[in-house]
């Protein structure tokens, strides 16, 4: 009899164990699943500034709310207070007044509205007591795509008749571009000093000591200026830009914007240049120690580079592509030693670093990744330093009869004057790819490496060369860099001097795995690697690399 309660006890323990096993399993199985893209979901975690959050942040669907408010016949002021005639981006307040105030701002207003709506018998959000409905850690996170303001979009604004200049000027730049005037205590248009918003409006709001104001974050500035303007236009029934989150930050919307940009560009033909007094051409040169020069010191530096600013403007989406901090000239911050403002990135690095798209070489390299170029320029393999003759392409050799490009003289020159110096050099540049005379290019090359298995392979040599040349037509960048005879040949005939009659492949590539040159491929691999590698990079479907008998080889006749 005594055994009974003990057995019961053991049974209960067993059941408990079994239940916990399944609970643990259930816990493990619960993984957050990927949800559809929600550009309007904002994480509300303002309270985090006042200590550890008691409950998870709230995932707030903004568009859903603005639609509901609109439907209810109210406007933005239902949730956003006005300050100096402008809506505050914060919810039901102008300033965060501490943890308690914040908490009640959200709880009182959200829940009150939900309650009212529910009382009217309409679909409403979570009610008092349903904490986890808002503070839901498993709610889908919002995914907001960055909104890019390209030069075309800029033109669509600057060229719009609906956007008038506030000061009555011909140009409407002042409608958006501004500077804070300390004396007037407000923002004013500084004509000719416009830059992109991000130069001043950084990722986070920042107290500016000299101006004595807090400079809004880019996010605040963009929402304030773009969205509120769009809204006011909309109120005046003028066709305008997006006002909903998804309108800028959604995939669909961005595609639509891109399409509209394209249409606008087609309509105008060539995109008008921005009016910011930028040069058509300039000369990029190292900074010099003027005092030392005055004393007659000689300058040892790379030759200055004539730069076609106008062409590069057309090739880029935004000014920020190169001018990442300000619209000043590169050499202002990037000196030979680098400055604190440039984070000690030197001029050489700023122009040649491969890891960044902002440098000349880095940006040009991305062009080489295009299939038509990639056969020779296998992008990922670029670690070799460029050959000396490549340097001279940009760092112009002095040409008789043309003005000398002297760093010392350039350092005191105004940018408008540089144009006259640069233009002769730019117009003298050969911008078309060159090749040897047709007769000097062998038409066919017979490769007899695998004669024990296959008939000799026939390489359509001239056809290949001419195709490469054709690919470079109408391409200024390619034309400029391949304007010497023999440059194109080096795509295959590598590691030997440029020549009309380069050495045959077999003169370097013999048997594989030589002890002295273990990294050098044997002849078989050298051919296969070169041909297949190029075909693959250029995305040429045929011949299929593994189709030996129908591709390059034919089985040997017995």
């Amino acid at each position, binding site marked *: 009899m005594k055994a009974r309660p003990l057995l019961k006890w053991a049974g209960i323990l067993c059941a408990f164990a079994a239940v916990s096993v399944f609970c643990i399993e259930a816990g493990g199985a619960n993984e957050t699943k990927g949800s559809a893209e929600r550009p309007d979901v904002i994480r509300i975690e303002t309270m985090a500034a006042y200590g550890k959050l008691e409950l998870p942040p709230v995932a707030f669907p903004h568009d859903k709310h603005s639609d509901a408010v609109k439907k209810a016949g109210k406007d933005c002021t239902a949730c956003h207070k006005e300050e100096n005639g402008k809506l505050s981006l914060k919810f039901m307040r102008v300033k965060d007044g501490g943890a308690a105030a914040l908490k009640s701002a959200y709880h009182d207003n959200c829940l009150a509205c939900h309650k009212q709506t529910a009382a009217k018998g309409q679909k409403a959000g979570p009610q008092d007591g349903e904490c986890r409905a808002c503070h839901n850690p498993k709610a889908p996170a919002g995914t907001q795509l960055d909104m890019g303001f390209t030069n075309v979009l800029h033109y669509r604004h600057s060229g719009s008749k609906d956007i008038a200049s506030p000061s009555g000027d011909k140009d409407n730049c002042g409608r958006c571009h501004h500077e804070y005037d300390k004396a007037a205590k407000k923002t004013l248009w500084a004509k000719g000093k416009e830059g992109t918003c991000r130069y001043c409006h950084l990722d986070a709001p920042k107290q500016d000591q000299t101006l004595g104001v807090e400079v809004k974050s880019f996010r605040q500035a963009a929402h304030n200026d773009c969205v509120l303007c769009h809204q006011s236009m909309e109120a005046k029934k003028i066709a305008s830009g997006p006002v909903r989150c998804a309108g800028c930050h959604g995939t669909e919307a961005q595609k639509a914007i891109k399409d509209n940009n394209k249409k606008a560009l087609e309509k105008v033909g060539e995109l008008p240049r921005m009016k910011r007094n930028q040069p058509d051409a300039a000369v990029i040169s190292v900074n010099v120690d003027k005092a030392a020069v005055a004393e007659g010191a000689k300058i040892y530096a790379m030759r200055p580079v004539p730069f076609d600013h106008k062409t590069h403007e057309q090739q880029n989406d935004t000014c920020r592509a190169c001018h990442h901090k300000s619209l000043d000239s590169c050499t202002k911050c990037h000196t030979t030693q680098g400055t604190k403002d440039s984070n000690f990135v030197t001029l050489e690095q700023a122009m040649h670093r491969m890891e960044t798209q902002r440098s000349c070489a880095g940006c040009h390299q991305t062009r080489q990744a295009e299939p038509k170029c990639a056969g020779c320029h296998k992008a990922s393999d670029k670690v070799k330093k460029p050959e000396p003759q490549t340097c001279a392409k940009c760092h112009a050799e002095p040409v008789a009869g043309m003005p000398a490009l002297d760093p010392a003289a350039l350092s005191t020159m105004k940018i408008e004057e540089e144009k006259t110096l640069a233009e002769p050099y730019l117009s003298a540049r050969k911008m078309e790819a060159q090749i040897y005379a047709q007769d000097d290019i062998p038409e066919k090359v017979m490769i007899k490496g695998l004669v024990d298995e296959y008939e000799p392979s026939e390489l359509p040599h001239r056809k290949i060369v001419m195709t490469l040349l054709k690919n470079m037509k109408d391409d200024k960048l390619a034309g400029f860099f391949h304007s010497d005879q023999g440059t194109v040949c080096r795509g295959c005939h590598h590691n030997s001097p440029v020549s009309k009659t380069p050495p045959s492949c077999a003169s370097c590539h013999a048997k594989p795995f030589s002890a002295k040159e*273990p*990294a050098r491929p044997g002849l078989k691999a050298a051919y*296969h690697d070169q041909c297949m590698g190029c075909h693959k990079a250029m995305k040429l479907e045929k011949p299929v690399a*593994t189709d*030996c*008998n129908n591709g390059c080889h034919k089985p040997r006749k017995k």
Partner: protein
Amino acid sequence: MRRRKFLALMGVAGAGLALGKTPAQAAGNVHFEGYPDAKAVLFDATRCIGCRKCEAACNKVNKLPAPAKPFDDLKVLDGERRTTAKAYTVVNRYQPAGAAAPVFRKLQCNHCQEPACASACFVRAFKKNPDGSVTYDASVCVGCRYCMMACPFNVPAYEYDEPLTPRVMKCTMCHPQIESGELTMPGCVGACPKEALVYGKRKDILKIAHARIEAFPGRYVDHVYGESEMGGTNWLYLSGVPFKEIGMREDLGVTSAPELTSGALAVVPMVAAVWPALLGGIWAISKRNGKVADEERKEAVKTAVAANQADNDAKLAKAKEQAEKDKKDSIEREVKKALEEAASAAKEEEGA
């Protein structure tokens, strides 16, 4: 009495536990780098085009039976394959997420620096040769397949359809053919049109592999697979996609197979050395305990009887009687029970 025995048992168990772990960690501060001139093969997945020429060459060089589908039939690549008794090497195709083109990977014996198969074999049928290859001797193999259990790369295959003379089959790095002068490099390496396979001294091969990573940082994952996996292998791999995307385990660790078992092997002599002495001691103690207890009991009874004989005679007699009766009852009960059980058993048996 019981408590004392329990404590003794616990002591033994404790000693056993202690023995089980300490030698395992004291495996000795020894380190081996392998044969100095061992050869290795480097497989570069960024070069492999999946033409199966290596498979064909391997088949030819090792005189393996012809496959069901010819080697130029690339449809075979649609399924993932492994090495078998009839194919020492196979090439598989993978489509890693985000990669533009499929990636190929060749499988064969990796010729571990410290082979698991050799460590696991209880007849020493596997041998690590000075040229880096790991070879197998069928003339002593019992066919227990522990080598296949041990191999972290799932390489050795077995002739399951051989009733009496099954062999374990795996790549030999063409050791016999190179030894005899028939080949200068493994068959697969010689056949590769792209030099996706490089043959040379392991030390040089490692240098080449690292040089390639350095020369083309964007092209390769910064790791030479096999440099340290399972203590290092003599078949090394480079890849442009994470190795696990091309069917290679990245969680094998760097501990070689012999090191994994050295701890357990170290305990073996300890058990033989410690157990007999310990057990003998326990036996002696328990024997003496038994004797002492017997004497004590006798002594106690004697004293009690002597002291109480006079005035307790009657009581004792009564108690004895009672005890007697109890004993009888219990025996009777037992016998009765036994009889009943026997009867019921017999009955059941009859019934059946």
